[in-house]
Each structure stands twice: as structure tokens, then as C-alpha cells.
């Protein structure tokens, strides 16, 4: 009788788990379908070629134009800038924490990094407006410092915790025997780190970078606050930019339903989705490529 009851519970739990799994999958499918449906509706009104190659995003003008290029370039500019800062800094910190820092320093650094991850993006954006922006403006003699550089720096700060934590796990996971082998041959600590430990940790480090890129591409609030949001075509890091995410956030609230403009926002969201997908697949590819040398 006890056993029967337990089996019943077991069956119940199993269907419950199945149900939650199905719900998650259907939500995902639903989102994807909605994106696709609205994107297709958009392309009935605007030719995909104009959309992809257009250099002007001006959906509210007299002659509405829907060129995604300025937004796409903005997103890429800010993300690449952020990664140019966060990747070396993140991997460097991770390597320092796991290979050089003493126990005590490590016990301070680790919680500090975790705390950085807990700072809300709106607070970081705020810092961008009141501290970083004026600083950049003063240094560059520009009228204001709300530009791609500002966004890139803030996003690098936001993706650092992810990159550091994941990369540190990867570096820590490298077997001590590899390090001993390298040191035993007469390599210095630095040579061992750069030529054996980091390459051996490469799959995890690539994963860390990909997660960092994902964090940066998708971030909305910070870039919305710190990059100035000019929809013109950016020429460099000192130009104000407007990312895909910021555009959706700004315009979605005011756009009338079922208009071309409304559909266009789904189309750019679709592009963002593709971009993230490509980043993830590239990451997966590299992870597999490195893994080949690890196990038979």
C-alpha cells in the first residue's frame, strides 16, 4: 500500500515534469512563431533587400525608411568594443585569480566579482550618464559623452563577471598534471599559463566569451541610457549610436499596432535573434574543435 502510494506519486511527478518541459518548449515555439509571423508581415510591405542594405532608420518620417544597417552597425560596434575590453581583462583576471593570487586575495576578489554581477543594469546606465559620459566628453572635447564608447565600456563591465567566472572555472579545471609536465620541462609559470593552461582551458574560455557576447548583444537598458540613441549611421566610437535592443525598447511603446512600423520592430528582433544564434553556433564549433585534442 505504501509502495502503491509512492508509485502513484512518482507517476504524478513524472507527468508534472513532462508538462513543465512541454510548457517551456511551447513558449519558446510561440515566441519564435510570433517573431517569424510578424517579420513575414513586414516583408510584405518592405523588400528584404531594402531592409538589409538601407542606411537609414526613419520609420516615422514622411517617407518612412526601414534600413537596419545603422542599428546593426551600432549593436556590433558597441559589442565589439565591449569585448575588446572585457575579453583580455576577464581572461587576465581569471588567470590571475586561479594561478597567481594567494588564498586571501582570492577570497576578496571572488565575492567582489560576484557582486559586480548583481548591480542592476539601470544603475550601471546611470553611472554612464553621470560619471563616464562627462568624463569622456571632457577628454574628447565633445559636447557630450553619450556615445558608442560609453556603451562599450559599460557593457564590458557588465559582461566581465560572466567571463571571469566561467573562464576561471575552465582554468581551474585544467589538470595539475599538465602544469607539472610543463614546469618539469623547464617552462616558466608564465609560459605554462599561456602555452599549456590557457589552451587546455580553451573550450571553457570560448564558452565564457560567447556568454559575454550574448550578454552584451542583448543588453538594453544600459545602452539605452548611455549611448545617446541617435539613429544616424555611426562613423566610430565617438558617435552616438542606437542599438537594435534600444530601438525596440524606445519605439515599441509608442507604435500603433499592425502597422509597418510595428512589424519592422519584430523584423529587427528577428535579426538580433539570428545574430545571437550565429554567435552561439560559432562558439559551439570552436568548443568542439578544441575538445578534439582532449579526449581520445
Amino acid at each position, binding site marked *: 500500500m505504501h509502495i502503491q502510494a509512492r508509485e502513484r506519486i512518482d507517476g504524478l511527478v513524472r507527468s508534472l515534469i513532462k508538462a513543465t518541459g512541454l510548457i517551456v518548449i511551447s513558449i519558446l515555439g510561440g515566441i519564435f512563431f510570433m517573431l517569424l509571423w510578424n517579420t513575414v508581415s513586414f516583408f510584405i510591405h518592405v523588400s528584404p533587400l531594402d531592409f538589409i542594405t538601407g542606411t537609414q532608420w526613419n520609420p516615422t518620417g514622411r517617407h518612412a525608411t526601414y534600413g537596419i544597417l545603422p542599428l546593426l552597425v551600432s549593436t556590433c560596434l558597441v559589442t565589439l568594443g565591449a569585448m575588446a575590453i572585457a575579453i583580455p581583462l576577464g581572461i587576465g583576471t581569471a588567470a590571475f585569480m586561479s594561478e597567481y593570487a594567494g588564498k586571501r586575495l582570492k577570497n576578496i576578489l571572488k565575492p567582489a566579482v560576484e557582486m559586480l554581477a548583481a548591480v542592476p543594469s539601470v544603475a550601471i546606465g546611470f553611472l554612464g550618464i553621470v560619471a563616464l559620459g562627462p568624463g569622456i566628453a571632457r577628454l574628447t572635447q565633445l559636447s557630450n559623452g553619450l556615445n558608442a564608447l560609453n556603451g562599450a565600456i559599460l557593457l564590458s563591465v557588465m559582461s566581465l563577471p560572466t567571463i571571469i567566472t566561467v573562464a576561471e572555472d575552465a582554468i581551474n579545471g585544467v589538470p595539475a*598534471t599538465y602544469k607539472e609536465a610543463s614546469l*618539469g*620541462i*623547464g*617552462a*616558466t609559470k608564465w609560459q605554462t599559463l599561456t*602555452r599549456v593552461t590557457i589552451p587546455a582551458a580553451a573550450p571553457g574560455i570560448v564558452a565564457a566569451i560567447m556568454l559575454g557576447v550574448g550578454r552584451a548583444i542583448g543588453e538594453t537598458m544600459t545602452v539605452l541610457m548611455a549611448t545617446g540613441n541617435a539613429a544616424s549611421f555611426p562613423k566610430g566610437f565617438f558617435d552616438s549610436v542606437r542599438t537594435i535592443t534600444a530601438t525596440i525598447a524606445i519605439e515599441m511603446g509608442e507604435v500603433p499596432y499592425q502597422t509597418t512600423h510595428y512589424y519592422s520592430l519584430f523584423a529587427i528582433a528577428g535579426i538580433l535573434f539570428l545574430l545571437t544564434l550565429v554567435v552561439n553556433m560559432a562558439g559551439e564549433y570552436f568548443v568542439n574543435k578544441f575538445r578534439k*585534442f*582532449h579526449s581520445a
Partner: protein
Amino acid sequence: MNSEHIKLAARNVDLWFGAKHVLKQVNAAFPQNEVTALIGPSGCGKSTLLRSFNRMHDLVPDVRIEGKLLLEEQDLYDKKASVTQLRKRIGMVFQKPNPFPKSIYENITYGLKINGVPAGQHKEIVERSLKESFIWDEVKDDLDKPAMRLSGGQQQRLCIARTVALRPEVILMDEPCSALDPLSTLKIEELIIKLKEEYTIVIVTHNMQQAQRVADKTYFLYLGEVIENGPTASIFNDPKQQLTKNYVTGHFG
């Protein structure tokens, strides 16, 4: 060998891990072009002694070493001594085969690059050291393959090749066959006997037969102390100490 030349020596060495006294007044002398075996029950300090010769303990916090460790006349722990130079002269083969997660070829060239051997010589040295380690015939067509795909015995011979490629003076081996099958073990033993023509070899082993097959001299350690040492045959056939006798006849360990 005629008059023995002592290549590597320990004089009154004490070693502590924190408060734990692991080596106690250890004296040892390893003659050139001979194989010396270190035997003794698990935890008696064989690996610790071996690793102190190429300063692997430098990585461990709270380790304290007293006494002298010498390579020829060179004090291994001299403040002015370059650790990396020493490790090049004293190679080490570990208990578990530990090739780098790189190709077979790169496993050998890594050490060459580190030590500034001109790239022009790499190919030749790779071939030579793989031949010396009796593994060339098995891998010569697969030099670009990942080393991790080799069998355990092949990996260990590759690790030996990686060590001999640098032409060290001493090779330290810490139970190099403990993870291997009998056939691979035999191959490595043959290799060790061959290698002693050029190198001084110190080998830790748990295998009494192995010690008798490869070693000229044997040291018996117990609880961090050298209990007895001498020619291998006399340690095994005519031990002076009761402890040694118990150990080599398999009464404990």
C-alpha cells in the same frame, strides 16, 4: 661503472608539509649512468624525495626544506640558481602519463621551443627522441594526431621522449609503469636500461620485480627515513635490517 661519479645527491634533507615531517635526515647519492630505485610502503616519502630534486614543491605553499640537494656541485636550492635551468637538466616522468593536449609532434617541440632550440632542428630531434623512446615506429605516420589518442603505454613513452628530447642529465621517474599493462611495462623497463647509458636515472617503484630488473642500486625508505641502501641484489637477497627484510619479502607494504 668503474669509479663511481655521484651525479645527484641529498645531504641531511628534512622536509615538512606544514607541521608534517615527511623526510627525515635523508642522505642519498645517485651515481652517474646508473639506475637507482626508491622503494618503500605508500606514504613513506618516495615521491616527495624525488620531487624535491626538480623543485616541484616550489608550487606547494607551506613547504619547508632543510639540508642540501646537489646536482654535481650545484646546490639546487641556491637562491641564485635558475629553477627553469635546473628542471631542464633534471627531467621528470610522472606516475600518470601526462602528455599535453596537443599533437604528438607538438608534445616534443613544446619543450624545444621553451628552451630556445632553433626551429630548424625540431624535426630531427623529434624523430631522434621518439626513436630513443621506442615509439617511433608506432607513431611516425600520425605525428599530427592528438597525443591523447595514444594508449597509456604509448603516452608514457611519449612523455619519456619529451624528456629525453631536451638531453637532461638526470631523469626522475615516479612509478612510471603503475598505470600500464604488463607488456607496456616491459617495454618501458627495456627503455630504462637503454637510457642509463646516457642518463642518470632515479625511479620510484612499488614493484619489487621491477626494481630488481632495472636498478643497479636500491634505497629502502620507511616513514620518511632511509633505512637501508646498497646494490639491488644485496638489498633484496641479503638485507641487513629487519624492516627491509619484511618489506622485500612482502610482509607489509
